[in-house]
């Protein structure tokens, strides 16, 4: 029993097989009529059927990573990715392959009428193949799902950490909320990118809104300062509350050659001074009293 034999069987029974397959998909009650039309479903089914038949003619095993299955993989991959994006559930997506079982088994039984051994071998082969296809569909589906979720997460992280330009050449990153290691590295990468984009030589990292700083987060902060320096920018860390200062000393975190300031305002003053800006008040109380 070989795969090419299976391919012949599928081909001989093509019309009936396809019709049964499409109708099983429709009857299952799991086809999302709201998301995909029957014509589309028929077209997709026909296309996949052809690709599979061709692949079976070329390959001698049901291992999908073999080159002969490239067309099949690409098609199924695209199908599950697009269904994942369209909002199909995993079982609605898996149905595409699973509903093929009955028609294929039917065709095999007809082809091997009276030959029990041949039938068993062919059924086993068809099962293995369809299972592999089903698993592949699920994996791609989950992968696409995961990507969507990851994208949303990093969008959220970016939203929650806006890097703002305070002045020509000065950017600030006001950090608010708990910093875990993952968030900190995303935030820091964003900061370094903004430094390049805005050509800013000074970055203020304000941690007033950060409740606690553990060793890992502190290490991340220090690494960011070091990376910024390698790029040609200086960082000022501001808003280190007394409690955090104590923890840092306790954890023996050395902020030795990092510029630190109690408040963002002080940090800005230092930054302006270093960039050569002079801030002066026009006259005492100036603007308020002007008529």
């Amino acid at each position, binding site marked *: 029993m070989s795969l090419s034999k299976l391919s012949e069987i599928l081909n001989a029974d093509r019309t009936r097989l396809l019709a049964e397959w499409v109708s099983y998909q429709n009857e299952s009650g799991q086809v999302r009529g709201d998301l995909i039309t029957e014509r589309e479903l028929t077209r997709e089914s026909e296309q996949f059927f052809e690709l599979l038949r061709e692949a079976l003619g070329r390959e001698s095993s049901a291992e999908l*990573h073999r080159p002969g299955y490239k067309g099949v993989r690409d098609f199924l991959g695209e199908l599950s990715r697009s269904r994942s994006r369209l909002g199909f559930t995993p079982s609605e997506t898996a149905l595409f392959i699973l509903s093929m079982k009955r028609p294929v088994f039917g065709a095999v039984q007809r082809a091997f009428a009276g030959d029990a051994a041949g039938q068993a071998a062919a059924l086993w082969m068809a099962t293995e193949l369809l299972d592999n296809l089903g698993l592949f569909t699920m*994996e791609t589906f*989950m*992968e696409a799902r*995961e990507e969507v979720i990851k994208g949303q997460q990093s969008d959220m992280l970016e939203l929650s950490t806006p890097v703002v330009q305070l002045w020509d050449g000065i950017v600030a990153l006001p950090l608010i909320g708990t910093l875990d290691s993952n968030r900190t590295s995303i935030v820091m*990468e964003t900061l370094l990118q903004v430094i390049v984009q805005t050509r800013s030589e000074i970055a203020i990292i304000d941690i007033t809104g950060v409740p606690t700083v553990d060793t890992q987060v502190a290490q991340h902060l220090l690494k960011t300062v070091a990376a910024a320096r390698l790029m040609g920018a200086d960082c000022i860390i501001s808003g280190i509350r007394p409690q955090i200062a104590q923890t840092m000393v306790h954890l023996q975190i050395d902020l030795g050659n990092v510029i630190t300031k109690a408040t963002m305002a002080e940090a800005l003053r230092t930054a302006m001074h270093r960039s050569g800006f002079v801030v002066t008040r026009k006259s005492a109380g100036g603007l308020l009293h002007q008529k």
Partner: protein
Amino acid sequence: MSTILKTEKLDVSEEQHIVAVRQAVRRLALEIKLSLVDQTKIVTAASELARNLLIYGGGGEVILRTLSAGIRHGLKVEFIDEGPGIEDLELALRDGFTSGGGMGLGLGGAKRLVNEFEIDSAPGRGTRIGITRWK
């Protein structure tokens, strides 16, 4: 459990080959869609280990593999030489230790830049180092 998607082999017997290793690692890292920072990390680690392989190991082989573990993808690079081997692994991995004129950052640094680091070496038996970075 992970499955191997693809395997490539490179011979490292002269200095230009270090560049070839960097380029192959970059290409495969892009293929499995590692982020730019992760790409840079594994290319840098590979550059260090390829140079060690050439200088201390007297040349050898680099094997690159892209891996798939369910929905995760990874890149594993192995450096295999039949040189003198490393007597004291702990010492060699320590930052600042060098038997040559280096800074002694290669091994320790490479380890920090990847998710998995395996080393197998003994005097007279050569050295085999594997690094993996997951997406």
